[in-house]
């Protein structure tokens, strides 16, 4: 991929982030009453609210407030939580590992199941395997992930004590312990993506398998894994990677519900609690952080295109 393309992509990413910053800043401005009312809480007098308004600079012109806030954010300071007073960056980095683990395992599950079954279905087009994969995929896409999680939790944690019922354990407590906590939520989170990936993988692999060069390769004696890994996978990967890139954002969003059902203290729980506690500074930080993650992931996806398909590098 040429430097100009990368620079253009980066520029686009920065533009999106700037727009996100404007929107998240507006979030605080659009509060009913204003942020001072939210900070003051239920038992404050009107005088208290006025004092907070002055102290926090909410009485200044909006543009001045935005510039000051933006400079602060650019220096890595997302402000302090209105609820606990702790720096929002600390709160985010404290719980990010749980959500990143959850999302990564969900992606692994989505890719492994989605690509495997998609390609099996493509190879056996029209067979019962193909039909089973296609209908299961439709089912997987239609199923709400939190409901799936509840169904999974029932046999594994409530009826039998096979897996921990709630919470997250960091990898430092052992790989098995870590995985035992997130395997069910990650499965519930990843299955819908797996289903969608399976359909895309099936489509693009079927497309590639019908190409003349595959016939040529087969004529030269290429079969089985050799054929799939040399000739099909890479060519069929572009639509799959595109979908995967889009799904990272969706998985991050999905983790909000999944974490709260599973009792995991992650970014999703942080966001929900912040909303319930009217901690708008934390909500703002969460939105900004998620936007950065999604923009960066999409940038990586763009760069992957170039690696996967030399034609895009121009």
């Amino acid at each position: 991929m040429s430097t100009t393309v990368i620079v253009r992509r980066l520029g686009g990413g920065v533009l999106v982030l700037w727009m996100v910053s404007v929107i998240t800043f507006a979030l605080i401005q659009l509060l009913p009453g204003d942020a001072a009312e939210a900070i003051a809480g239920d038992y404050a007098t009107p005088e208290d609210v006025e004092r907070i308004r002055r102290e926090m600079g909410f009485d200044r012109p909006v543009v001045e407030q935005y510039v000051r806030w933006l400079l602060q954010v650019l220096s890595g300071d997302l402000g302090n939580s209105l609820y606990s007073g702790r720096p929002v960056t600390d709160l985010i980095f404290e719980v990010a590992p749980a959500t990143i683990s959850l999302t990564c395992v969900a992606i692994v599950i989505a890719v492994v199941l989605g690509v495997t079954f998609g390609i099996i279905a493509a190879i056996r087009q029209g067979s019962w395997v193909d039909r089973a994969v296609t209908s299961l995929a439709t089912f997987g896409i239609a199923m709400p992930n939190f409901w799936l999680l509840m169904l999974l939790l029932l046999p594994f944690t409530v009826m039998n004590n096979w897996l921990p019922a709630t919470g997250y354990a960091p990898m430092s407590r052992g790989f098995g312990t870590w995985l035992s906590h997130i395997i069910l939520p990650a499965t519930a989170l990843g299955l819908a993506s797996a289903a969608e990936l399976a359909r895309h993988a099936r489509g693009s692999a079927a497309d590639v398998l019908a190409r003349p060069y595959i016939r040529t390769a087969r004529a030269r004696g290429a079969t089985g894994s050799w054929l799939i890994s040399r000739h099909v996978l890479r060519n069929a990967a572009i639509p799959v990677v595109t979908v995967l890139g889009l799904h990272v954002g969706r998985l991050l969003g999905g983790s909000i519900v999944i974490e709260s059902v599973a009792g995991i203290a992650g970014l999703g729980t942080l966001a929900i609690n912040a909303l319930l506690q009217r901690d708008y500074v934390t909500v703002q930080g969460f939105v900004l952080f998620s936007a950065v993650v999604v923009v960066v992931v999409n940038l990586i996806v763009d760069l992957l295109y170039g690696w996967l398909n030399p034609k895009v590098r121009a």
Partner: protein
Amino acid sequence: MKRLGRWVVTPLSVLALLAASVACGGEPAPTTTSSSSDGILRWGSSSQPTSLDPRKSATFDPLFLLPVYDPLIRRDAKGNLVPALATEWKLSPDALTLELTLREGVTFHDGAAFDAEAVKANIDTGRQPGNNLTSALSVVDSVEVVDPTHVVLHLKTPSSHILNVLAGEAGMMISPNALNNEDLGTNPVGAGPFKVVTYNQSSLIYERWDDYWDRDSIKLKRIEMTFLLDEEARLRALINGQVDAAPIRSNQKEQALAAGLELTTGEAAFLYGLMLNTSRSQLGNPLVRKALIHAIDREAINQAFFDGDCKPVVQPFPPSHWAHVPGLEDSPDGRYDPERARELLAQAGLPNGFDLEMYMGTAPTFQATAQAIQAQLAEVGIRVNLTAMENTALATARRNGEFESSFASIQSGRPDPSQFVVDFYTPNGLFNPGKTTIDGVEPLLQQMRATDDPQARAEAMHEIVTTALKAGPPMTPVCSALVVWAHTDKVKGLEIAVNYDYEFRSVYIADN
């Protein structure tokens, strides 16, 4: 599978590997069997602390604060005062000076000595503007150190309620060396039985501090609190054995019992009710407010929405609280009587009823209950227009008196029941936007605040509650919700404190 070959098989085997490592890497079996003096309590918490600094904490935080901070005066589960860091207290006959005798030989976690200077430093920082204790401590004029074990509080007005204030957050003693610590909210330093060893967004872990002055009374070695804000997740963690005890919702009781858990229930000074703005609609008329008391079928609401766990009340305090007046709910002034409500409205010149705006929060329980009240009030001719409001907007409306009525949850016992009277029943109260005066309440309030005799205080309080009910209170109580804790049979000695002074002092883990 053979034809598909290596690439396809590998990812599947990755999954198999993941599954295998889960199967053999599960959590070690919890070791709850331990001797009764060094058990571990694993608590599933329904809330997260706002701050572990008592000056910045919120209503439901004493649960997290009391293990770390010993208060000057303790309150037992029923709300009675018992000595703690202060061994004795003496209020002058005019209730203008309070002399505290302090326990000797007590140190804080950081080694600082607990003495009169430490008490003065704590109360003085609590009085500074901008923290949550400022208004509770506003009656304190000055703090005088007599000698290392004696301190005198000079009060601006007769204020016996200062004792309950000192039994709450304002009396929780912070090490004088840590008063200005920036990180006190996450790294607390007190003189209590436990020290915080881990605090993050998923858990709060305490370990017993062996130099605690009353070390022998503490039977837990560790308290491990896990924040499980989702009710279903909390119950699942209980059933799964991840936690030993946790608060649950009333309608989860059956499921908990079926899973072999035990239940402990208790009352709390917390009620649902209607906040009224007496300067709006017809609410300035006491007859209308009395009609509201009679028009609500509290028992029906209790059964329909709270599984019988929300005690019907026409007063701010639950039956087991010392400020509660027994029998008021069945008295002629308090009982459910829609006929009487219609008569009162007719007497008020409103035979055809009237329109009433009512705001409520967005939580489902609130909405369902408020709708039931709407239907009940319609029976007597009060046409309620319900509006659900986002919380900040609702709090702003209440603060500025920009509402007619609002269905609300109200905590009534902290720091002292007299604070509820000040906030709701006196003209300058925070939650009395119509500035309604109830004849007789203020002299009784002064009378109550002029004595620290529990009997005399209770009597004055009972008279205030009865007087307010007869006069048509500017706040209509509905019911007081019970607290329900589910726990394994190994957890013994749990006590639900009526004023939220949850301590784990009496808790131990049984051997069997």
